[in-house]
C-alpha cells in the first residue's frame, strides 16, 4: 500500500474508531433481568403519551420489591406491529399493555393471548363509563382490559396566530366563531386570505373527528362486515374532508409526518382537532418555547369520542397478578386524574370525572385553559361507536391516504373515493 508504519498505525486506529462508533450505534442491548434477586420487574407498554411517569414512581415507592419499566412508543402505527410480534413469538410483550380503541377489537378476537383481569381485580363495572367498560370485555364476559381514557373532542388553536390574523382570540369568542363546520370553513377562508396559510393542519384530523361526531356504524356494522361504502358516518365525514380541501383551509401537513411535527413549532397551521389525549402530543411537538400560545376551544359540530385506550395483561406475563394490580392502580380514579394533569388523557373512571380537583384543573401549557371543565362536561354524554376489528388499518391505510392524495391535488374526488373503498375492503378483511 506504500504507507509507512506510523501512518499505518494511524490508519488502523482511525478505522477502529470509525467501526467502534458505528458498532455502538447499532448495539442497544437491553437488560431484562431484575437488578436484585427477589425483585419483580414489570414492563408497561404504551404509545403516545399516557402520563404514567410519576405514577409508576409512586407505585414503586409504595410497593417495595416491584420495579417498573415504562416503554413508550411514539406512534400507534409502530406500536401495533411490535405487539403483534410479541404475541406471535410468545415473548417480549410488556406485563401491562395498552390497547387503543382502533385495535382492541382485533386483539380481543384472540382472547387466549390475554389474562382475564376479573380474577385479580374483581368486577369494576360500577367504576367506569358503562359502554367503555363493556368494550374491554369479551362476548363471553372475560375482562381483558381496564379502561384508561376516552377521547372527548375539542379544537386546539394558536392564540397568537389567530390574533395576528385579526380574530378575537379568547376561547369563548373562538368557540363562538365556529359552532358548525361550515362556520369553521368560513373562518379558515378568511384566515387564508389574511395570512396565506392553512388554518387546520390537514383534512384527515377533521375526518376522524367527524366520524366520531356522527357515530353509529363507521367502517363496520355490528356483525363486523365492512360497510365503509354505505355507512352514513363515512359519507358525511368524507364530504366534510373534501369541502375543507376544496376551500383550501388546510396546511396539507399529513398527521405524524415530519412536516406536521415541525408545523407545531413553526406555526404552519393554527388549529388542530384535539381529543384530550392529543394535548400531550401537541405540547411535546410544540416545545417549551411555545408555552401559552396554544389554547382550547370547543369543536365545530358537537361532541364525539375519538380514541381512548385500555390496559391489558398478556398471558405471557410471568407476573400476571402483580401486573393486573398495577393496571388497576393506573386506571383508578386518583391515577386517572394525575395522568390527565400530566399529559391530558381524559378519565373514563366515574369518580375521576366527578373529582373536584379534575374539574377545576387548568392546563398551564394551554394558556391555563380549564381543560377539566371543557372535556369533563361532555365526557358522560359520549356515545360509543361501532369499532370493527381492523378499524385503525381501514382508517390509516385506506381512507387517510386517499384523502391526503385528494388534498394534495393528485387524485380526483371520484378516484380518491374508489381508491379508499377498494383499499378498505383489503385492509378491513378479517
Amino acid at each position, binding site marked *: *500500500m506504500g*504507507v509507512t508504519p506510523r*501512518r499505518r498505525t*494511524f*490508519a488502523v486506529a*482511525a*478505522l477502529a474508531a*470509525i*467501526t467502534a*462508533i*458505528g458498532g455502538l*450505534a*447499532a448495539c442497544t442491548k437491553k437488560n431484562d433481568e431484575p437488578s436484585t434477586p427477589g425483585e419483580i420487574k414489570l414492563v408497561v407498554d404504551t404509545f403516545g403519551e399516557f402520563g404514567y411517569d410519576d405514577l409508576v414512581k409512586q407505585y414503586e415507592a409504595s410497593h417495595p420489591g416491584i420495579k417498573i419499566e415504562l416503554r413508550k412508543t411514539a*406512534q400507534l*402505527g*409502530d406500536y*401495533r*406491529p411490535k405487539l*403483534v*410480534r410479541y*404475541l*406471535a413469538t410468545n415473548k417480549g410483550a410488556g406485563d401491562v399493555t395498552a390497547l387503543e380503541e382502533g385495535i382492541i377489537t382485533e386483539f380481543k*378476537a*384472540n382472547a387466549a*393471548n390475554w389474562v382475564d383481569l376479573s380474577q385479580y381485580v374483581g368486577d369494576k363495572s360500577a367504576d367506569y363509563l358503562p359502554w367503555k367498560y363493556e368494550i374491554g370485555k369479551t362476548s363471553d364476559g372475560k375482562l381483558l382490559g381496564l379502561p384508561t381514557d376516552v377521547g372527548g373532542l375539542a379544537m386546539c388553536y394558536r392564540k397568537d396566530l389567530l390574533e395576528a390574523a385579526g380574530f378575537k382570540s379568547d376561547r369563548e369568542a373562538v368557540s363562538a366563531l365556529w359552532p358548525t363546520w361550515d362556520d369553521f370553513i368560513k373562518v379558515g377562508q378568511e384566515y387564508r386570505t389574511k395570512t396565506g396559510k392553512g388554518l387546520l393542519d390537514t383534512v384527515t384530523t377533521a375526518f376522524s373527528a367527524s366520524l366520531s361526531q356522527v357515530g353509529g356504524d363507521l367502517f363496520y356494522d355490528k356483525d363486523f362486515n365492512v360497510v365503509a361504502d354505505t355507512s352514513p358516518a363515512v359519507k358525511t365525514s368524507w364530504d366534510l374532508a373534501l369541502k375543507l380541501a376544496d376551500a383550501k383551509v388546510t396546511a396539507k*401537513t*399529513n398527521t*405524524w*409526518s*415530519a*412536516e406536521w411535527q*415541525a*408545523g407545531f413549532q*413553526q406555526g*404552519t397551521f393554527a388549529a388542530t382537532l384535539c381529543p384530550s389525549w392529543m394535548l400531550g402530543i401537541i405540547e411535546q411537538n410544540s416545545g417549551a418555547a411555545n408555552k401559552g400560545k396554544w389554547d382550547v376551544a370547543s369543536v365545530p359540530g358537537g361532541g364525539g369520542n375519538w380514541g381512548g385506550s385500555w390496559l391489558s395483561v398478556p398471558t405471557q406475563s410471568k407476573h400476571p397478578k402483580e401486573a393486573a394490580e398495577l393496571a388497576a392502580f393506573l386506571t383508578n380514579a386518583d391515577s386517572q386524574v394525575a395522568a390527565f394533569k400530566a399529559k391530558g388523557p381524559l378519565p373514563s373512571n366515574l369518580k375521576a370525572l366527578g373529582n373536584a380537583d379534575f374539574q377545576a384543573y387548568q392546563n398551564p401549557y394551554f394558556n391555563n385553559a380549564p381543560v377539566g371543565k371543557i372535556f369533563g362536561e361532555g365526557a358522560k354524554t359520549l356515545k360509543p361507536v361501532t369499532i370493527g376489528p381492523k378499524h385503525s*388499518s381501514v382508517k390509516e*391505510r385506506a381512507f387517510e*391516504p*386517499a384523502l*391526503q*392524495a385528494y388534498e*394534495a391535488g*393528485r*387524485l380526483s374526488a371520484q378516484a380518491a373515493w374508489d*381508491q379508499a373503498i377498494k383499499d378498505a375492503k383489503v*385492509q378491513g*378483511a378479517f
Partner: protein
Amino acid sequence: MSLSAPPAPPQLVKPDTHRASSSSRRFKLSRWDIKYSPYIYVAPFFLLFAVFGIYPVLQTARMALYDWNLIGDHTFTGFDNFTALMGDEYFWNAVKNTFGIFLLATIPQLFGALFLANLLNQNMRGRMFFRLMIVAPNVTSVAAVAIVFAVLFRRDFGLVNWVLGFFGVDAIDWKGETWSSWSAIATMVDWRWTGYNTLILLAAMQAIPKDIYESASLDGAGKWRQFWSITLPQLRPTLIFVVTVSTIGGLQLFTEPVIFGDGRILGGAQREFQTIAMYMYEKGFNDLQFGYGSAIAWALFIMIILVSGVNYLLIRRSVK
C-alpha cells in the same frame, strides 16, 4: 507421513508394546486431525448459516403454502398465495418501485465509485485520510442516515427545498411524487454505499500489477486509454461482486423508504415509494397474513437470484 513414523525397534530387545501402540494411536490421531479438523474450523459458519440462513428460507417456503395468521390459525392452501400474488396490483407496484429506485441508485453509484476509486488510486496528498473518510458514511447507522435525509428532504423547512428556493424553484413535495421520492431515497442509498464500493474497487485496482501500466505507457497509451484497456478488464471479477452485492442490497431496500415516509409502511399516499420489502412487512406484520408475506419473501428471493444472474452475464460480457 511415513517419514515421521518411528523406526522399527531392534529385534533383540523385547518390543515395547505400550510405546508402539501409543505412538500408533498418536499417528492415527494426527491423521484424523489433518483430515477432519478443517471441517470443525469451518463448522461454526455452516452451523450459523443453517440456523439463520437455511432454516428461515425453508420455513418461509412452508409458511407461503399456508393461510397463516400471525397470532391465530394456520390452514394449508397450497399455491393460493402465489396465485393471488401474481394478480396483486400493489405487489407489482412495489416491484416497479423497487427496481426504479434500484436503477436510479445503483447506476450512478457504481460510476461514482469507479471514478472515486480511480481518483484515490493516484498519488495525492492525504490520500490515506480520504480513503478512510470515504467509508465513514457506510459505518453510520442506516436509521441515523435516513432520519437526517428525511429532514433534509422535508417539504416545509427542509434544507434541500431551501437551497432550491435560491434558484427560484418552488418547494417540492418530495414524498408526494414518484420521481421526487425515488430520487430522495436513491440519494440516501448512494450516500451510504458509494464509499463502500469505492473501497472495494480501490483494493482491486491496487492488486493490478504495475508493470502492465509501465509497458502500456511505453507503448504510448495515455491515462484514459490505460483505464479503459487495463484497469476495467482487470476489475471484472470485482465489478461482478460489487454489482451482485448492490443488487441484493438494492432489492431488499426497506429502512430508508420507511423512515423517509414518516414510518408509514404504505410508502406515500398512493404507494409511490413502497418497496417489495415494505409490502412484505405490511402483509406479514400489519395485516397478520404471514403466509402471504412469506410468498412475497420468496418472490423477492427468486427475483434477486434472477437479477444477479443477469447482471453477472452482462458484466462478464461487456467488460472483456
